[in-house]
């Protein structure tokens, strides 16, 4: 059982990593990015292309792909999300939904339906493990992913609280008009935030490709896991995202123990329980959700 718990915690590191960008965009930019998973897959394909065509290791490839992802994030905010946000809260959600479809289909057109993986390009790292006392085997890649998630979340927390740019981003998130009145260029702050979010998405995509297989339509399940981890951890809380990722992974591991098909069901149940607890805590229980609006007297 302790082996399952450790594997679950390490898998939680990956979920925290993929949820990190989603949570960051939601907390800072108030945008639910439904193209999150597709953008991660785009990063994985970019690394696969560099590795298969130009023989660049995926780790070295990150030096090319992460700046590209940052540029994509900056451009997305400036030319798409910023404009769609003027149309109300719903329009950015629909915009990112459309963006996901566009990315998925462009990848399908370019690369076809074959599944791919970055594992062949990272040598034995994809399957190497350490043996711990008690016959527990811990995958080296899983540990690297977990450490990356912790460092990334801690780094983002430090960036937001200890740097001038981080304070500017928080101020813009809280009140863009007042942020402008204290000298913050709100448009720039949001574009930088989007660039940072896309860097985390790029990293998550890289690890997705290293630890598993992916195809052009692999974005949707990644979005689902990211969304579940972010909600369980309290959307908007960076450290909560790590906790959310671990809880989701442990629930999936437990589900798999109960039934071979129970891996995803276990995660969904944990997500729903966390969702209802949060809704109840905020005064919106199941009854509140299902309550129909009162009819107006005619």
């Amino acid at each position, binding site marked *: 059982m302790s082996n399952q718990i450790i594997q679950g915690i390490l898998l939680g590191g990956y979920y925290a990593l993929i949820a990190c960008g989603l949570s960051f965009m939601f907390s800072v930019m108030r945008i639910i990015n439904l193209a999150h998973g597709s953008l991660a897959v785009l990063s994985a394909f970019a690394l696969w292309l560099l590795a298969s065509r130009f023989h660049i290791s995926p780790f070295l490839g990150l030096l090319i792909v992460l700046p590209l992802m940052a540029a994509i994030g900056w451009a997305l905010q400036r030319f798409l999300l910023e404009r769609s946000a003027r149309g109300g809260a719903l329009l950015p959600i629909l915009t990112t939904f459309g963006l996901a479809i566009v990315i998925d289909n462009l990848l399908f057109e370019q690369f076809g339906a074959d599944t791919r993986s970055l594992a062949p390009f990272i040598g034995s790292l994809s399957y190497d493990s350490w043996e711990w006392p008690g016959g527990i085997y811990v995958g080296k890649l899983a540990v690297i992913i977990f450490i990356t998630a912790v460092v990334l979340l801690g780094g983002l927390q430090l960036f937001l609280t200890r740097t001038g740019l981080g*304070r500017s981003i928080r101020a813009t998130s809280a009140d863009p008009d007042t942020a402008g009145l204290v000298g913050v260029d709100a448009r720039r702050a949001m574009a930088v935030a989007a660039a940072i979010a896309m860097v985390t998405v790029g990293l998550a995509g890289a690890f997705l490709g290293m630890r598993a297989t992916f195809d052009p339509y692999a974005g949707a399940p990644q979005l689902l896991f990211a969304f579940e981890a972010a909600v369980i951890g309290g959307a908007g809380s960076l450290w909560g995202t790590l906790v959310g990722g671990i809880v989701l992974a442990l629930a999936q591991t437990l589900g798999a123990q109960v039934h071979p098909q129970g891996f995803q069901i276990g995660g969904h149940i944990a997500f729903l329980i966390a969702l209802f607890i949060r809704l109840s805590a905020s005064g919106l229980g199941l009854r509140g959700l299902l309550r129909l609006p009162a009819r107006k007297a005619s």
Partner: protein
Amino acid sequence: MSLLSVEDLVVRHGLLQAVRGVSFNVERGETLALVGANGAGKTTLLRAIAGAHPQASGRVLFDGADLSGAPSHKRVGMGIALVPEGRKLFVEMTVEENLLLGRTAGRPGDWTVDRVLETFPNLKPRRHARTGHLSGGEQQATAIGRALMSNPDLLLLDEVSLGLSPLVVDRVYASLQGLISSGTTIILVEQDLNRALAVSDKVICMLEGRIALAGDSKSVTREEVTKAYFGLHRKSAGGVSA
């Protein structure tokens, strides 16, 4: 050359003209009091000068430069800082973080966090407290300090005494007196007529978006301002071009 020249400025809230062709100058080192009833257009005028509200027509010249189209963050960089009505602090951030935000524009100057805390001693023990947990007076001091941290050439103060007890207002004004004595150029929106006349060099009374009276604070009588306040008297006294 005046530090600030407002020329025939028109500002709209939708179809409503909140500021209707207002013109005046502010010289370097002066304190100008803007008074008038609620809805007279004082706050809208200040926000338009700070770039927080778009102007429909007219010009705002700052140190000779036309500010038309410049967003608020650029105006902060040029030396205009607004202390908005209601303070508008970032309540999840500490006093120090709010003050440091004021440095974002990166203007050179003497204002530091320590100097703000010396100017407003009541903030010293609250340096690391979230501003949402502060008293009204402490919040107002933080808002003024945040504006000062941008080392402004022109400080716009909107209703700094609103919602504060008389004792706290006295403390805030005692601190402001130090700023005025040091030669900071200030435009002050104030409901308390006596205070406005006491601290300012010039006064403008607005009525329904227009200047109803403008003059030197020392030469204008309280009665004249009161009449202008209620639309009973229109006059332009010497000193302010209106």
